[in-house]
Each structure stands twice: as C-alpha cells, then as structure tokens.
C-alpha cells in the first residue's frame, strides 16, 4: 500500500466534541493514492462526524487534517472548550486553520451525502453544471453578458459527456427529485465528479439499496475510480460491499478507532466482532 509515498489524506489526532459529548476521539488515519479505504462502525460511532470535519462542514475541536501534504484543517480547544474538553491529545497543534467546504472542494476533495442532497428542483443536467461552476474561468461580467459562449459550450459538452459515461444521459432533463432512489445516488456521485476531484468521499453510497443494486454499485465505484484516477474513502454499513472493494478498513466504535487493516484482518479482529455483535467485555 504504502510504498514509502506520503499519504494523500492524513487525519491526525482529531477529536470532535459537541457540548459534553465526544463524538470522535483522537482519531488518526491515512489514505494513500489510488486506494479505496472504508470507515465502518456501528450506528452513532462517529463516522459521518469524521467525514464532516474532513470536508469542512464541522470544525474539529482538536487535531489536524492534511491533504496532499498541506495542512487543510487544524484546531485546538478554544474558549469554553478549554475547560470542558474531554478528549485525548489535548492541544497538540498550535495553529488553527479553517477552510470552508467550498475551499476544500477546490483543493480536489468531493463528497456525497448520507441522505442524498441533490439540488432537488433542478434538472439532472443543471445539477452537474452547477457543480462545474467553481471551475469557471470567465469573470462575472463576461458570464453575465454571455461573452463566454465558448466556455459555456465546453461546460455543457463536458457535463453531457460525464452523464453519458455514468449512463445517466437519458435522464438529463428530468427533475432530480422525480427520479428513483438508486439513480439519485448515482447522480450525486456524478455531480461530485463534476468538480473534478482527485479524492472522492462517499457517505453510505449503498444505503437503501437491494443486493443486486449493491453489486452494481461496487462495480460502479471500482470503474469510476479507474476512469477518473481517484482515491476513494467511504463510509458504509454494507459489509459485503466494504469487504469486496476496500483495500484497507478503519473501524470506529463510540468515537474511538478500535481497529484498522485489510478486509481479511478486520474480519478476524475480535474487537470488531465484539463491537458489532455487542459481546460484553470481550477481552475479559
């Protein structure tokens, strides 16, 4: 996996505390180029929270996140939190960096959401075009006065090509919310790809899918990863999918990392089994 290369994404000692609740505690992980890495764990383990502070939706209470070697997010307990902080590794980083979600997307990370968040009232085509907006070269006046016909045309062609590639071209003029659930998931991935990411974060892509759809999704993710030369990090409950596509897996339980390793290692890991089957005092 590693080959001595630096990781693309590195999460360092991140803690997220909401009021008195520590949702994620001292979590560290790495994702290397071209990997598919999964984050699993029982409900409420803090997976989506981890996703949200990586993508800038939340500010972690403590810890750092690096993307391609540069510091993307950093924080330490401040203000009232200084007194109430309950996590580990208190205030190890001195700097505070807070990029907003759009800045993080501009760096080359794109994401999907657990409960699909398409632009519901817009057409599929406009959903994709809106995601291409950030790559617009022409300034506001050029765009507003239609002086960028060339660029607008190119954007439309790219969007059409992207949809065709994902097998969604035939629904491009449909209103996003009118489509079936499985298709909406794929549109959300297509929309994320429209931001031209190098790193894709998928939040429970198989949620609500039947086994056949899940198999298709597995193939789809692998193919998309190859086609777009991506590194993928996903949260998933669906174990067959996770074991099938991931190179490595991290396991969270009650906000703490309890295991990491290849699918085979994780399947053998007694902490993981305990966490999932709810065996009490597995160690004792």
């Amino acid at each position, binding site marked *: 996996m590693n080959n001595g290369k630096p990781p693309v994404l590195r999460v360092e000692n991140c803690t997220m505390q909401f009021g008195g609740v520590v949702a994620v505690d001292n979590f560290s992980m790495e994702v290397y180029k071209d990997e598919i890495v999964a984050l699993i764990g029982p409900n409420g383990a803090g997976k989506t929270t981890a996703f949200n502070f990586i*993508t800038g*939706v939340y500010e972690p209470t403590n810890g750092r996140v690096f993307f391609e070697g540069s510091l993307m997010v950093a924080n330490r307990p401040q203000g009232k939190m200084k007194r109430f902080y309950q996590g580990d590794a208190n205030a190890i980083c001195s700097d505070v960096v807070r990029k*907003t*979600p*759009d*800045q993080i*997307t*501009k760096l080359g990370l*794109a*994401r999907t*959401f657990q409960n699909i*968040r*398409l*632009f*519901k*009232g*817009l057409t599929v085509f*406009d959903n994709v*075009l*809106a*995601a*291409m*907006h*950030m790559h*617009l070269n022409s300034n*506001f006046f050029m*765009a*507003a*006065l*239609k002086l960028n016909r060339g660029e*607008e045309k190119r*954007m439309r062609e790219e969007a059409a090509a992207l949809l065709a590639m994902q097998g969604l071209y035939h629904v491009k003029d449909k209103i996003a919310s009118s489509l079936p659930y499985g298709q909406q998931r794929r549109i959300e991935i297509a*929309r*994320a790809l*429209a*931001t031209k990411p190098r790193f894709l974060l998928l939040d429970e892509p198989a949620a609500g899918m039947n086994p056949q759809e899940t198999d298709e999704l597995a193939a789809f993710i692998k193919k998309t990863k190859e086609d777009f030369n991506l590194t993928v990090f996903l949260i998933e409950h669906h174990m067959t999918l996770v074991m099938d596509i991931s190179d490595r897996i991290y396991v969270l339980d009650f906000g703490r990392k309890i295991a990491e390793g290849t699918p085979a290692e994780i399947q053998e890991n007694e902490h993981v089994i305990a966490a999932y089957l709810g065996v009490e005092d597995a160690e004792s």
Partner: protein
Amino acid sequence: MIRLNSKTKLILTVAALGLTMLWFYHLEQNPRANGYLIKILERSAIYAVVAVAMNLMNGFTGLFSLGQAGFMAIGAYTVGILTIPVEARPNVYYISGVAPWLEKIEIHYLAALFLGGLIAAVFAALIGVLILKLRSDYLAIATLGFAEIIRSVIASPQMDTITNGSYGLKKILRFETIYTPFILSAVCIFMMVLILRSSYGRAFLAIREDEVAAEAMGINLFTHKELSFVISSFFTGVAGGLLAMFMGSIDSGTFRVTLTYDILLIVVLGGMGSVSGSVIAAFLVTGGREYLRFFDEPLKIAGVQISLFRPGFRMVIFSALLMIVVLFYRKGIMGDTEFSWDGIANFIYRFLPTGKARRGNGGRDE
C-alpha cells in the same frame, strides 16, 4: 404537447413587440385622453424591474430580503438630487438651502440612474458583509431594519441640505415619452435574465436548493449570496430612480415598508422563481390597483348605499389576495416556470373543443 418551431416563435415575438409599439404610438398620439393608462403602464414597468430584482434574491437565491424600499429610496434620491434643474433648486430647497458642493451638479438622467443603482449596490455590498451570514428569517428582519435606517437618515434634519429632509424633493426630471421607462425597464430585466441564465445563475439556484450541498460542490456561499444581493440592489436602485422620474416628486414617506410589501405581493403572485411571472404580476397588480379604485368610492345600488365600498377597501382586497395566494395557490401564476409561446399554444389548445376531443380519444399529450 405542442412544440412550435423557432421561426413561428420569432414571428410571434416580433408581432407582439410590433403591436405593443403600435399601441404605445397610438396612446402617445392623444396623451390627454390616455394619460391615465400611460401612467399605469409606466408604473407597472418600473415595479416589474423591482419585482424581478426581488425575485432574483428571494426566488432564485432563496434569501429572504425585505430591504427593497430602502434601496429604491437610495436610487430615487440620487436621481432626484442630480436631475433637478440647477435653476429650480433654490425653489426646491426653500427651507434650508442646498449644500454648496451640490449646487451646480446636474447630470444626464441615464448617468444619474446608473449612479443611483451603483450607490445602492455599494450600500448592499457593505450591509451584505454584515448580515448575509445570518439565517434566512434574521436576514429578513435585518434588511427591513436597514431599509428603515436608510429612510430615517434621508428624512433627518442633518441631511436637509442634501435630501431636503422631510420636505421631499420635487421638480425631478420626468419622462418625456412612454418609451423611455419601457426601454430602460426592458434593458434591466433582460440583463437580469442573462445573469440568471449564466453559470452564476445556476450557482444561485444551487444555493436556493441546498446550501450545504452547494458549498460541498465548491460554490462559495458568501461570495454568491453577496453577488446576488448586490445585483438585486443595483437594479432595485435603478428602478427607484425610474420611480423618482415617474413621480416627479418624492419624499421619504414614499419608501415605507408597505412599498416592499407591494413588491412582495407581485413576486408571490407571479411565482417565486419566475421572471415572466413577476413581470405579468407587476402589470396585473398595478393595473388592478388603479382600476379597482371604484372599491374605494361610495357605491349606490338602486339608491341604497353599499357600506362595504369606502376608502381602504381596495387595500384590504389586495392584502387578502396575498394571503389567498400564499395559503391556497402557493405557486402563483407561473410557479417557477417561464413564459413561452409553447406554453401559450398549449394553454389555448387545452381550451379548444377539438383539442379536448382529441385528448378524449386517447391521444397522449406527449
């Protein structure tokens, strides 16, 4: 579904424009008899600009702003101050006199309108930095508050030598023909349509649909909200200037919150998110308001005084209309669709007996 070909549509558009021009020409031939109608049309056109500008912010970007009256006041006062003929100024500022630096400045009305829009836009940019991060309902109250601040500053005695305080301005340059306000309004609306159809317009829509997702797609919320607010305010300012020229005399009372509510009625009636809806509703509401004046007149039927009809009844009807639209007909006239000749053709087709018959025979619409 009927799809007209593009040539037919072009012909229809040219014909409609031509007919409108002919009609205006006809109205202008006899200004005395048609003066009232001309006034209504001009006011409608100006309100259409404000309504589209409000829609750009509220309907397309999803930000609930209620500051329209304030930005219109800025535009109106800019145009008023700069277009009152120099020789008429002592007469206008008869109480406190005019500020010396302002005394001799008189500029072309087009420049004044543009400047009015620009000042409104600058104010919006400054205010926007402060308030656009607020949640939608706080934003509404904050913009309403700003409009009220602007109005009270304009009316304050400290501004007497510039805005003539609470006495208001008069002798503002007026329109000479009906074409001026119509062409200017059309240009403003056309520019807003271009913006909405550009990539920026799509970004606005994305923000309206889902802020979190829009941000995750690399759209900077603050920049785009600010942009929408500034554009909207620019055109609101220009429309305020047009209104000043239309009325000839203004005072700070013209720009009360009720003015904003009037525009809101137009936007809601026309459909949040529809430019053509706003335009249509601007004419309907403004025209309706004038032609329904008889509601305010005492009415006698067979010698019996109907007590329902007396001053104020008209406004009750209009505010009730706003309620009815919101409660029972939330989409308004156009929903979030736009006017198209295809739409008209289908509308007519639906009411033709042959159309019904054909559909009855199992002919699918699509």
